């Protein structure tokens, strides 16, 4: 039933509006469907993504917050933990049952205590500190490890592109 999910999403939307974390904006794409959000994430300062504004889609399941939302960047982003189609691979977005990488402890998985805000903050920290152990984009992980200059160049290009410059 979508009723309780709707109430919770409404509360989260309210919180994200009244009290947004620095550099993050999130809300439903369209009020007709509260289960589809768009988030704008500013690249964390002091990293190669600094200054970029990256849009992402969040799709919530009808049983939210029991199940995690899906998150997908809708812009180009070259990062070890982001699939080439934009899907974000972080462990709090994984349901307690599934474990695609086969390494996570349940403590890192999704739980109803998590929220949009925490997910987005985790994504910010992921942007700042890629985890090349469990790479979703192997090329990016390799470049991050071995050719940091080149990685930063690409990141800068994507930052520019995300700003429409």
């Amino acid at each position, binding site marked *: *039933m979508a009723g309780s999910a*709707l109430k919770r999403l409404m509360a989260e939307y309210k919180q994200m509006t009244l009290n947004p974390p620095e550099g993050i904006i999130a809300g439903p794409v369209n009020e*007709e469907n509260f289960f589809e959000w768009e988030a704008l994430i500013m690249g964390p300062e002091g990293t190669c993504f600094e200054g970029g504004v990256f849009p992402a889609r969040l799709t919530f399941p009808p049983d939210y917050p029991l199940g995690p939302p899906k998150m997908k960047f809708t812009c180009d982003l070259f990062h070890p933990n982001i699939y080439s189609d934009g899907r974000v691979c972080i462990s709090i977005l994984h349901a307690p049952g599934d474990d695609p990488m086969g390494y996570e402890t349940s403590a890192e998985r999704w739980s109803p205590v998590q929220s949009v805000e925490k997910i987005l903050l985790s994504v910010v920290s992921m942007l700042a500190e890629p985890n090349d152990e469990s790479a979703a984009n192997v090329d990016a992980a390799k470049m991050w490890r071995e050719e940091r200059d080149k990685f930063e160049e690409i990141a800068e290009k994507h930052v520019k592109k995300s700003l429409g410059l």
Partner: protein
Amino acid sequence: MPVILLERIPLPSLRAYTGFSVVLLACALFYAHQVVLNAESVGLEIPVVSVEQLDDGSFNNNEIQYMNVSLPYDAYVWNMMYVMTAEAWCVWTLVNTAYCCLILLGKLVQKIVFGELRVSEQQHLKDKFWNFLFYKFIFVFGVMNVQTMEEVVLWVAWFTILGFFHLLTQLAKDRFEYVSFSPTTPHFIHLKLLSLLCVIVVSCCGLLTVCGLVGFQMGLTIFAFMAAECLLLAIRTLYVVARYCLHLTDMNLEGVWENRATYVYYTELIFELAALSIDFGHHLHMLLWGNIFLSMASLVICMQLRYLFYEFQRRIKRHKNYRRVVKHMEERFSMATTEELNNNNDDCAVCWEKMETARKLPCGHLFHNSCLRSWLEQDTSCPTCRLSLNEHPVNRDPNSNVPDNQNREVPPANPPGNQTMNHFFHFDGSRYVSWLPSFSVEVTHTNMLANHNRLTPAQTSQLDNMARQVLQVFPHMPLNAVVDDLRVTRSVDFTIENILEGRLQAPPPGTLLTRALGEEETSSDDSDNYQTASARADGVDIDQQDYLEIPNETGDNNGSETDNERSDTLSQFSGRFSKSANERETMLEDRKNDMLEIARRRFLAKKSDDNSLSSEETEEASVSDYSDNINTSSASNSGDTSDTVRRRRELAYMAATRRLGQQTYDTSIE
């Protein structure tokens, strides 16, 4: 699949079809009119067109014979009707007209109740339609083995009406599910949908009466076949109505409806089981009655039976799990006392609503009865602190192979050192955002130290600088420990915080594992603490509001470029949560545009700055920028360094006391 094949057939547009039907009907009427007039004037002879239906469906009415037929009625209308029903092609025209009317009626209902159909609704409708057609075809020709044209026509008529209602129910269900995704649906939409559903339910009763009448004449088997279909339709419709009513009640209710989940669950269970068992019985009946064990039809029915059986089993399994969870929960976790509820000024972490009653877990966390139950249905740990709530605590031996959560938290394969790193980083996700004490960072940071070891020499010298600052405050700390921590936090404040918290004492190797566990707990406590500290939907944290206002004022007072920029940044924070959906949408759009605009300006400004500033200055700037980031409140004036430093100290102190308080609170619970 036949479905795919059928979809390829080009269908004429509705307009063309309607036009064609009208013309055909007019022709038939005109013909009947002529016949009746002729018969009335001539008296005896009327022409009868013998119609041969060709393979391609067109009519061949070239051969006209004259027969001696006298019209039975005196009235013109009755004669017309007689002629219309006496002639085969007129009958087909009437049938076609009936279909045309039905399609137009469907279109009308769609226009009135649903408006424009969404893509997924159209897709569902199509699937449902072809599926229905396929199964009924199998039923009529495979199971019933209908021989005469008359019977076929009657069955087709019956299934047409049934299918029509099935499609409407499907549409209503899809639309209800969509509507329930939004809190701002106008009332008249609910009203329209609900009245359509009610009309369908009433029609179902009518159809059931028809079943009864037909069954009376044709026998019990036919009655069972027809009634099963009818009942299925009625149950599906009623299920949607029930869910709809529950949803509306829930949405219009202020606060929490404690038993909502239970009602929803049992409605779902009863309707689903009822539908499944009727469907199963219906298919079984078909298989046994049809005597068609070795035909294509029997294969299809067997497949369907198998599917229904598995569905049934799955549902029962889920219900058993549900019962088990409920029993387990009621046995092991007592309801929280009023005192406990009063002490706990936090909302339920699952639904974020206030708790009037709650269940208490062994770890001391409180949740709504229903929220906890639905979570436990899929996982067996505390949502907040991940404490394993398994039914058999004996299994918690870390060496046993039982894959319960407790074991997975400490995989024995991981070297203890790594584990420590993991959990250690959990705390510091908050360093990007000022006012959060901490939260659980998802990434496994096992490799992070390695990454930081590859820092460039320039950054290392910066680290040394920062380490010296830390050592001025805490001379007793070993230098390498401080540097290591600085590598992670990249901030003097957070390292100081870590030391204050006692996390930064190089621990003896033997205690690594236990420390890891202890920190795990603290980390979740922190995230819990965050729940209280962060402003909730309605209550904006007072500190936070102060932060919001101060910088705005200073931004106005100062004419400098940077301060203007800052006040721009903070305009994002002054978001208001409007009651109107449209206003919310436009405000969100504005905020997004503002952010993009600010980011662009910053980017361009930075580009020009990079060229003019010396490397040392950049470093300094980035440090002060960063501290601004740590807390918006410290952003009062970036030039006034002593003020910033004082504020930082205060923050570190506040964080430390808060966490110490949290720890003592936790130990007192245990």
